């Protein structure tokens, strides 16, 4: 039995039945699940949650499904790592990495949203699931879709890193490489979704799919002992993750899981694709689309679907945002790996580099707790570090050769 009674347009508040639809027929605004918070408040308490399995379904009353979860039984509850060495380097007191690099099964936060999307897609009776993706989503739909026994169509920009392509193909989906960038792929998929009765997780299933991101927010609060952190830094592609983490915080306050919400939300983008932080810094309410050019391909969405709402969330929380060039992204990836032993994908480099910048600007309070959301694994984007890592020391298989090298290394 679910807790969603309808879908509602975020713009004009018209209500719709719970179906695989995603835009308001009247104003084209996005549709969002309407929950019965009074009932949820009784069912979803700290005590109830504590007794449940350590996966993302422990917050299921606040997720838009009707019956039993279908996939994702090992997804969620990623580590919240206390980063003391990194805190010292950045000159802050209490710093944590929310580490989705180890998410089961495909090593990014997308397993959260896809678990919810596929469960809902099965409830709607779909036999084919599809997505437009920059990589991580493709992996998750391919893998969890296999587990759920669904046919899969995955659309990617043809320029995607080779390693990301292989990591989708292995699960046996129909992989379609489109000549164009993510925005082209997304536009094409909107048109395909018009024509074929498939569950496009980030199009016609989007109102359900996007809600899965809230689990990242709930987990942060629970892992801090049901306390709101001072600052949360979140990478932005479409802006959906940031919007939903903020929503999770507000819902947690509303149903009494936390006593007081006083968190500031910060957006992180790459300078080569920063439509959201640019609008923020220029004080505009509207997002000007851009043509992306950055090594952080998983964030390269020039026309961010939820950018408008991400701006609202940032402002409502009193937070801010920044963007960083590719060089700083690479340095931050190396900093995170070298100080905390966490290998993040380029997007994680963006988030940490922006955190550093905002701390230096005085925009993020040094006391903390500061949460840095690292949402994907670096093993997926190793090409980005080509030529940017320390050299390998080649030696002959004898002690003298080793000691020759050792002299130059210094200890």
């Amino acid at each position, binding site marked *: 039995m679910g807790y969603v009674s309808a879908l509602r347009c975020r713009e004009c508040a018209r209500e719709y039945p719970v179906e695989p639809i995603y835009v308001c027929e009247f104003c084209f605004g996005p549709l969002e699940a309407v929950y019965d918070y009074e009932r949820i408040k009784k069912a979803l308490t700290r005590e109830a949650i504590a007794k449940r399995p350590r996966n993302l379904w422990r917050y299921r009353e606040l997720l838009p499904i009707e019956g039993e979860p279908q996939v994702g039984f090992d997804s969620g509850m990623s580590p919240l790592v206390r980063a003391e060495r990194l805190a010292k380097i950045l000159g802050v007191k209490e710093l944590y990495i929310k580490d989705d690099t180890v998410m089961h099964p495909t090593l990014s936060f997308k397993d959260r949203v896809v678990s919810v999307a596929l469960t809902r897609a099965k409830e709607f009776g779909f036999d084919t699931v599809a997505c437009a993706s920059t990589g991580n989503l493709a992996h998750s739909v391919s893998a969890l879709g296999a587990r759920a026994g669904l046919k899969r169509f995955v659309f990617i920009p043809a320029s995607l890193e080779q390693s990301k392509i292989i990591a989708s193909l292995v699960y046996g989906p129909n992989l379609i490489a489109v000549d164009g960038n993510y925005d082209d792929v997304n*536009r094409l998929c909107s048109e395909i979704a018009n024509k074929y009765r498939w569950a496009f997780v980030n199009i016609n299933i989007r109102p359900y799919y996007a809600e899965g991101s809230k689990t990242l927010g709930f987990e942060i609060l629970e892992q801090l002992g049901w306390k709101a952190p001072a600052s949360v830094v979140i990478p932005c592609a479409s802006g959906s993750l940031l919007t939903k983490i903020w929503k999770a915080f507000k819902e947690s306050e509303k149903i009494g899981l936390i006593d007081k919400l006083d968190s500031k939300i910060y957006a992180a983008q790459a300078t080569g694709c920063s439509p959201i932080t640019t609008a923020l810094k220029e004080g505009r309410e509207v997002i000007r689309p851009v043509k992306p050019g950055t090594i952080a391909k998983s964030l390269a969405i020039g026309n961010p679907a939820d950018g408008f709402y991400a701006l609202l969330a940032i402002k409502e929380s009193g937070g801010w945002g920044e963007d960083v060039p590719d060089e700083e992204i690479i340095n931050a990836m190396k900093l995170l790996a070298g100080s905390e032993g966490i290998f993040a994908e380029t997007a994680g480099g963006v988030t940490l580099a922006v955190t550093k910048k905002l701390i230096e600007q005085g925009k993020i309070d040094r006391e903390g707790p500061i949460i840095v959301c690292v949402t994907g694994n670096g093993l997926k984007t190793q090409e980005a570090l080509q030529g940017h890592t320390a050299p390998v020391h080649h030696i002959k298989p004898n002690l003298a050769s080793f000691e020759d090298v050792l002299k130059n290394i210094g200890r």
Partner: protein
Amino acid sequence: MSVKVRIPTPLQRLTGGKEEVEAAPGKVMDIVNKLDEQFPGIGERISEGGKIRRFVNIYVNEEDIRFLQAEETEVKDGDEVSIVPAIAGGRDR
């Protein structure tokens, strides 16, 4: 020859279920106005006060009109226009 306009699902009720309709060449807003004569009501759904709505993206030959001349973009014979819900995208205004 004329311009092909692809209609998204939420608007197909107004076009009698047609996914694709034809229009005469002209500026983007002229085409919207012409469509409205053919299919009454469609104009106000995708535009407001002579501007395309915030949650609607318009593409001419696969290019977002915000990278062209926005509502003033000229659409020629043989061009293709797509009307795509932005889901929640912002607009340059």
